[in-house]
């Protein structure tokens, strides 16, 4: 089954066409990557998919449901959860508290429940606490669980952001340049986490610059350049694709928007 279906997505900023009729599908449980030179329109595409931005035309279906035009929090509520290129942690909160916040989508209760704390609320809090510890172990942040999030080294901040997104139990996880600014060990740790997430049945789409990472973990790669999709296929197919080679070696990557 298809978890994500992007169809003819076009985004224009005035005269600039950031995304030009981009289409691709992501099957359930797949680990896909969107790559392209700087300014190719990857982040714009991500913003459209996650609901942060409405496309000029085109549609996005998530689990068969049209999500184009919905506000971002509603898209997230449906189980499509994203991370950002620049980490967006809750800096003053502890690592543990950051993860606990992630459970918003899969829990319930407002002011009244918080005040009266009925039995189901207390049980829910206990489940959140237990699951938080599991996630801390999953990404290997247990030892720093009580630290404030912005005191962590950058690599661990990335892992924390992924753990927080996982708390929301997404069926599709969008990762916007998760390896940006990471050293080799940190990238390896992150790749490991992403693969383990994917093995649990969560579809993952990442936008990434790190070719080695993408070739190593992605099952399907979509290449965009100047806003257009120029290739789509397995890592082996992409490596041999003439247009991709041209885009990366042809000197166009200097043309940032």
């Amino acid at each position, binding site marked *: 089954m298809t978890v994500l279906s992007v169809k003819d997505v076009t985004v224009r900023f005035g005269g600039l066409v950031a995304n030009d009729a981009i289409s691709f599908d992501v099957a359930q449980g797949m680990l896909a990557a969107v790559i392209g030179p700087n300014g190719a329109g990857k982040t714009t595409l991500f913003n459209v998919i996650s609901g942060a931005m409405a496309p000029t035309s085109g549609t996005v279906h998530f689990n068969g449901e049209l999500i184009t035009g919905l506000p971002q929090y509603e898209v997230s509520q449906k189980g499509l959860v994203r991370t950002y290129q620049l980490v967006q942690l809750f800096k003053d909160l502890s690592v543990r508290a950051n993860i606990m916040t992630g459970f918003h989508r899969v829990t319930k209760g*407002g002011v009244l429940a918080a005040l009266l704390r009925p039995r189901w609320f207390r049980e829910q809090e206990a489940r959140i606490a237990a699951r938080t510890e599991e996630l801390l172990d999953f990404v290997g942040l247990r030892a720093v669980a009580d630290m404030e999030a912005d005191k962590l080294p950058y690599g661990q901040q990335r892992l924390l952001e992924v753990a927080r997104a996982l708390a929301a139990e997404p069926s599709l996880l969008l990762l916007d340049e998760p390896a940006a600014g990471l050293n080799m060990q940190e990238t390896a740790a992150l790749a490991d986490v992403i693969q383990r997430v994917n093995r649990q049945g969560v579809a993952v789409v990442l936008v990434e610059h790190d070719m080695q990472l993408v070739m190593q973990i992605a099952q399907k790669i979509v290449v965009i350049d100047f806003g257009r999709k120029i290739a789509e296929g397995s890592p082996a197919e992409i490596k041999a694709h003439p247009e991709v080679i041209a885009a990366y070696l042809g000197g166009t990557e200097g043309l940032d928007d």
Partner: protein
Amino acid sequence: MTSPNITSTNTVYTVAVPVAAVLSVLGIALSSSGYVVTLIGFAAIYGVFCTGLNFFMGYTGQASFGQNAFAALGGYGSAILTANYYWDPVLALLVSMVLSGVIAAAVGYPTLRLRGHYLAMATFALGLITYEISIEWNSLTQGYMGLSGIPPLGIGKYELVSEKHQLIVLTFVMLLGVWVSVRLRDSRFGRALRAIAGSEAAANALGINVARYKLAAFVVAAIYASVAGSLFAHFVGFISPEVFGASMVILSFTMLYLGGVGTTWGPIIGALIVSLLPEVLRGLKEMQDVVYSVVLIAILIFAPRGLSGLAVLFQRKQTGESKQTGMNP
């Protein structure tokens, strides 16, 4: 410090010590003269107001310069209903609370679309508008003259005639306010608010309806402000527009930042210090204002996260060693 851990490892510092401190201040006040009682009473009322403000500014990270509007609503609501219509004070307080909440929701819905400075300006206007209404709506508020003859707090026939009895009730209402704020903070609701303060983009990505939760925090803050206004009316027995003027905004901001914005007890510490400081310095005569300002600036320089931040430093020193061994296994 402010991490919403459900398993509170340090209840001694977060609950026992502050509550004991509050009760000892109450004890000192009760064994003092009438004037000290009045001052501590004001501090307790401002403690309620600032605890509410802390919800919107501390936990949710939004600026409101107009919470005095809701204090005015509560104050005038209680005053009019009890003095003119002989309602029970508790009933009047509750009805004013609901009214303030409803008005906050109605006003906040369009206003909270604004961010940062624009939100600050819009909320400030809210306070000014309320002030003007309280002056101009003569038939209801008696304008500059203000409303007097407001009965003290009480239920049915039982009235708290003595100021000291009222102070006891005020202190417990304040503690109740803090208790409610902690309960709300350490929950799914509170975590959503803190997510918004931390990063609206991330909050959105986690499925949090940012606009709705901002509005909820605004309403909660307004309800606290309304209670503070009602308590003031009953405690003093007289209100006028000036009571809920712009000076209330300045005073409450000073309290909040001095005590520690975003902390549980900061608003209470701030309310107490800012209420007492001018009186402590009274002996300095014309130098009073200068020394007052110097003390405020000094506190903000040496304790930029507020006075309750200092308490955290102390607490860290106490537990630092055990924590570090725990962090390096």
